[in-house]
């Protein structure tokens, strides 16, 4: 009966998604999400059939990143090169979309640029990006992520 319910999710799967949401949110925003945010993340996985039908190998990569505390955000651009929309990219994007609708994420405030300090701010973002890309490249190679 339960398997016929589209909203049914076995407890282990729910727990996995909960851990995944917390970890990926932390990688992207350096803080943990609220319970409501995690609920929305799990609900999206329940409702969007494409997210449930992702390639098993890619899902194992996501799982390994979460279990081994790897730099998901640094690894993701490298995975994107071969697979245009890797499972990790899809899940990080889902986190981003949910965060954009959540006022507790000032990263998405639209009318608050740095003004004269823009180039400094952008330069520092690029330097951090280079560091994360290097770290991501090493971790991807070390763990053989695909």
């Amino acid at each position, binding site marked *: 009966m339960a398997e016929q319910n589209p909203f049914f999710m076995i407890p282990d799967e729910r727990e996995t998604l909960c851990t995944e949401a917390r970890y990926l949110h932390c*990688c*992207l*925003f350096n803080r943990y999400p609220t319970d409501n945010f995690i609920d*929305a993340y799990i609900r*999206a996985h329940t*409702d*969007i059939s*494409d*997210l449930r*039908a*992702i390639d098993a190998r890619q899902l194992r990569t996501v799982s390994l990143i979460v279990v081994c505390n790897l730099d998901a*955000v*640094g690894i*993701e*651009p490298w995975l*994107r090169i071969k697979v*245009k*929309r890797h499972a990790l*990219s*899809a899940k*990080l*994007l*889902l986190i*981003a*979309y*949910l*965060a*954009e*609708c*959540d*006022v507790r994420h000032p*990263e*998405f*405030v*639209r*009318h*608050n*640029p*740095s*003004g*004269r*300090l*823009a*180039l400094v*701010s*952008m330069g520092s*973002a*690029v330097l*951090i*990006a280079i560091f*994360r*890309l290097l770290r*991501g490249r090493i971790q991807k190679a070390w763990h053989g992520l695909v």
Partner: protein
Amino acid sequence: MDWFNFVIVGSGPAGVAAARRLEGKGTCIVDIGMTPERTFPYASLSEGLASGDIESILGPHWEMLANVVEPGRVHAKLRAPGVRYVVSGQAFQVYGPSGEPCLYGAGSHAAGGMSNAWGAQLFRYNDADLAEVGNWPINADALETYYVDIEAHIGIAGEIDDMYDFLGETTCMLPPTPIVPAAVYLLARYRTRRSHTKLRLGRSRLAILTQPYRSYPAYGFNETEFFSTEQLGLYTARRTLDELRAGGRVTYLGGYELVAYREYPEFVEIDLQQSDSNAVRMICTKHLLLGCGTLQTARLVLLNKQAIGKSLPFIDHPPTLVPLFIPRMFGTTLPVRSFPVQLVATVDVHGQRDMISFYYPGALLWSDLLADMPLPMDAALKLLPNLLGGMLVAQIWETSRPALENRLSLATNGSIRIDYPRRSPYARLNSLLTALRLLGVYSLPRLATLAPPGWGFHYAGCLPMRHRPTSFETHTDGRLWDSQRVRAIDGSVLPSLPAKNHSLTLMANAARIADETLRCEY
């Protein structure tokens, strides 16, 4: 059985333009006439985002996330539940150069047709455009009075500037739309350096009311264009349809789809199927005008002629997209209100006059942009607030002529298949980027992407008009090659496409064909 002098199928730009010429003369408009079941409940995108209302922004069934797993599956502008109904009609598939499907689309069953999702740029074609692209059996003069009439009906914002030679006249021009600081900078820079460049830059001509016009309010510029089709002050064909219905001078049969027609010497018999009940109703008319959009009109004609194996020419305007960066404007405060189309340009290289539209991505969610930036997503997110102030996206449109290989046909189940193997990269990109560099605008050729065929919705050429049409072509008065009483009035009859989009011209041509129909003495 109901009898009408004129039956127009479709309420998109072509259908309503023809209906305006034929109102009060025993005219009936037939369409499915879908309207949105859901509207965006906030006054602006900023207000919606600040509300924390996930369901309103991302959709009750996560419609805005349609591309999260498979990028490009749904056109960015057609994802939201308040817009998606626009493309709920007959499905079609486009096959690209590799022979693989590169785009899944659908026709429109919406009242107002595809104009509910258009970019609102309306341009006239002039004789130079038609001479450049070739194959047109009529001159631009033949459309002149219809351009004037339609422009006055719609209300078009623009300015007489350096683009005048390219864009030509506009009747009763309204003040131009406001533009974002990056576009203001680009335009100012152009004005000081115009003598050093082959680029011509100016304001676009937009079907947007920048001030109240004909009892309609001015547009709000609330950045909700990707979330709702209910935009007061932005013209769609639905406005004209509503006016025609309110005036009571046309009969409106909503909820019906034309499934077959039979032409007799004295009349045309039409089978209409009700979309709810599938019940079939028959009506008769002296003249049938098919204006259901290029693809659907071509499909109807092919089905009616039982020409399943037959393929027709197909023309599209797939644009090249290039992000442009203006470093001087990085960090500029982003506007609270904006419209996607900012400026328009043309560059005359080797006699080819391409059209470049400059867009500001204010109506997109920022998350839409993250996976397109070659950076970790957190860095991309840190860059965006400063980057967007100095960023525009160029959409480059080239002239498009029929190519032997690009064809439309019907599969055995009656669905539309488009094969579009011939698609060349934009050859003049380096010249354009060099011209823009002089204005302080930078980009790299490798950042350019080719939109897949079918992406731009500028479809034409399946039933091209000719002075002496052969099979599956049309006369210059819209009649099918072998017909006295059945006419095609939409983009399907345009034989080739200049770089400017064809929306206004297909309206003017539909109005011209309607007048030709009135003039015929049978």
